[in-house]
């Protein structure tokens, strides 16, 4: 199987280029295995990965035009030759490794932790099964960044638009019966940028390897805002 891989080492290359590799395809091989095989051929080739089972969220790459986690992308589902690039729109550190600090900064902006105003009880704060169900489809995010880096609105305004990942997280805490900072959370999302740059393009939904739906979460936040405003 042929691979066209994005290469860039800012210390030695004046500009990025694509390099061809050929590897022997074995049964059950994922893209991460292919990248490891490529690394055996050329040790200078750099990419991030860790868990190898779609849990850590560190090996997001752009494959044949869509963002995927390499470790759970079967080679059999990819068109030969496979074009592998770093996430679009992020500054490249080296080869497939990009700088995600802006993405994390946006996540940080939604205060992604539980906030209580009442004093904390001695024991855990109980939820009914129904209240717990509200978190399904929101809490599973592994912060791989496949969604935000596939979002055109995030490409144009990554410093001002929070992006689908951070907004999904905002929704996760708005939906949590134990959280008591709903008002403040909504206030922080005000203005034309943080939330309302989303134009419901749904690239994020297509990209999410965990099958989550940030567009729906964003719609949910808008609905809560509307209800509060009238």
């Amino acid at each position, binding site marked *: 199987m042929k691979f066209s891989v994005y290469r860039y080492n800012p210390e030695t290359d004046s500009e990025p280029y694509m390099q061809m590799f050929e590897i022997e395809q074995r049964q059950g091989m994922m893209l991460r295995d292919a990248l490891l095989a490529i690394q055996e051929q050329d040790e200078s080739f750099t990419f991030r990965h860790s868990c190898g089972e779609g849990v850590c969220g560190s090996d997001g790459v752009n494959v044949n035009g869509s963002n995927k986690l390499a470790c759970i992308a079967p080679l059999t589902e990819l068109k030969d030759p496979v074009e592998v690039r770093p996430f679009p729109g992020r500054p490249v550190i080296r080869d497939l490794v990009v700088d995600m600090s802006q993405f994390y900064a946006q996540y940080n902006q939604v205060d992604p932790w539980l906030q209580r105003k009442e004093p904390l009880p001695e024991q855990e704060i109980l939820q009914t099964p129904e209240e717990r169900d509200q978190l399904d489809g929101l809490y599973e995010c592994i912060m791989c960044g496949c969604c935000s880096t596939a979002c055109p609105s995030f490409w144009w*305004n990554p410093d001002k638009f929070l992006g689908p990942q951070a907004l999904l997280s905002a929704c996760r805490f708005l939906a949590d019966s134990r959280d008591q900072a709903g008002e403040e959370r909504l206030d922080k999302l*005000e203005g*034309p940028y943080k*939330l*309302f*740059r989303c*134009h419901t393009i749904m690239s994020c939904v297509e990209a999410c390897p965990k099958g989550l739906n940030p567009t729906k979460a964003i719609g949910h936040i808008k609905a809560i*805002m509307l209800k509060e*405003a009238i």
Partner: protein
Amino acid sequence: MSRRASGLRAWFLQRATAIYLILFLLYLLQHLIFNPPDSFAAWQGWVAQPLVGLGLLLCFASLLLHAWVGFRDVLIDYVHPTAIRVSILTLFGFALIGCALWVMQTIFLATVA
């Protein structure tokens, strides 16, 4: 409404005007299919009916508001230097106001004729 409405209000206006535009265009379409006005006088008479006139005014108001929100969205997405964005937005705003005045004049003239 709180300050929060600066993003919410634009978004809400966009949805609300879109719904009105669809409904009114459906009405317009059925009118043109089932009793198309065959003369200038018929057109004028149609527009002169108070409900039609009001509907048309609202339709153009919606259209212009919708255009404003949409155009502003495009500029916020793609045109980042503030000075350029404000200039384009101002020009566009004046053009929309011009259109609005023109529509009001047309409907007013049809009503008094």
